[in-house]
């Protein structure tokens, strides 16, 4: 698993490929299946996830080590981190409404889905649980976020193709999507030995 002794590049590729959040760790599937109906929607959603994951892990590191640890309140971490993710999404929504209503029209409806996105919260928990330093946390969150982005883009492209392909009657709709995700997951497992981890 990840820790501070890994080389930064190894840490990045570990989060990005070898422990890809969706296809290897299987976290954040609810929004994953909701938003990958078309490529455009998935790309917008992925951009918000990148920003939110980055901000949330960074702020969580500061809160955990500068606020919760001095007063011995680490047991509060679940409540604090979940509310942090919601807080970031809410602030983003307000800023978008205030400054760029056009951009809000494009990606605004995705923000309510991401409010309690498992992927963002999971990245926070994983980075805090493995006691990463601040620099490593930034590298790790970048890896997780880009891994998520690549995963949803890949899946959205394939899903658009599969939705017009002839499949058996009972597999139409969500079953074929599950099997498609399983097949992509097999290819991701193939990368497991690439860095000798």
């Amino acid at each position, binding site marked *: 698993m990840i820790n501070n002794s890994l080389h930064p590049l190894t840490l990045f590729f570990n989060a990005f490929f070898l422990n890809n959040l969706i*296809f*290897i*760790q*299987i*976290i*954040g*599937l*609810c*929004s994953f*299946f*909701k938003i990958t109906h078309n490529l455009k929607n998935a790309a917008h959603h992925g951009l918000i996830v990148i920003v939110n994951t980055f901000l949330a892990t960074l702020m969580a590191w500061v809160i955990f080590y500068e606020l919760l640890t001095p007063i011995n309140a680490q*047991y*509060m*971490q*679940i*409540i604090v*981190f*979940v*509310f942090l*993710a*919601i807080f970031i999404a809410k602030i983003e929504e307000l800023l978008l409404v205030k400054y760029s209503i056009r951009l809000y029209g494009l990606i605004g409806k995705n923000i309510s889905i991401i409010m*309690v*996105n*498992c992927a963002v*919260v*999971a990245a926070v*928990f*994983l980075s805090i*649980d493995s006691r990463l330093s601040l620099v490593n946390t930034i590298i790790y969150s970048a890896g997780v976020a880009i891994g998520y982005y690549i995963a949803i883009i890949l899946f959205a492209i394939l899903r658009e193709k599969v939705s017009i392909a002839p499949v*058996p*009657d*009972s*597999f*139409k*709709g*969500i*079953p*074929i*999507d*599950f*099997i498609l*995700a*399983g*097949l992509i*997951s*097999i290819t*991701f*497992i193939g990368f497991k030995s690439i860095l000798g981890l």
Partner: protein
Amino acid sequence: MHYQQNSFTELFKELYRRIFQRNPIIVLIAGLCPVLAISTTVSNAFSMSIIVLCVLLLSDVTIRLVRQFFKIELMYFLHVLILSFYVTIVDLFLKGFYIEISNNLGIFIPLIAVNCLFFEQYENSRKQPSFLLSLFSAIGSGIGFALIMIFVSFLRELLGSGKVFEVTVFSKPPAIFSLAPGGFIVIGFITAFIAYIGKRFNRDDK
């Protein structure tokens, strides 16, 4: 508190509806992450199901009791607060008394606080004026989740390790079923099978 009498048939109809017709996993595709990620053994699935059922019941009852004191705009945050409060209790309890379960389930215990299943259930109970009906609906969701979870984990343990409950069924199992892709493929075939049965017997699940 708003309270009204419900007949037993009404309650069990709601229970049946939540378990089969509106199953959270198969039909609504909510709360998938634990079902796919930690269903590698039956014991894991069993402990996760019990945790989910407990948190569902407790959060549903608690939000019913306290929601009359808060404004309607705050309900969402109140729900998240209550949910993460119970998840914290469960997390600390498991770390204190059942460290093995806590290690096996790992990140998925804190992630219960952001599981879509609970938000779906919250949306359901918000519109439901009756206390008992919403309680039965929560129980139904929990049982529906548990049924699918235990079934998936049974299949994955059987196919992935070749043994069930420490009894070897066949040797040289395909290990892919105990890895991440196995979960996707198994649940894909289960949903396809249920769709097949639904079409075969021409029953419309509304």
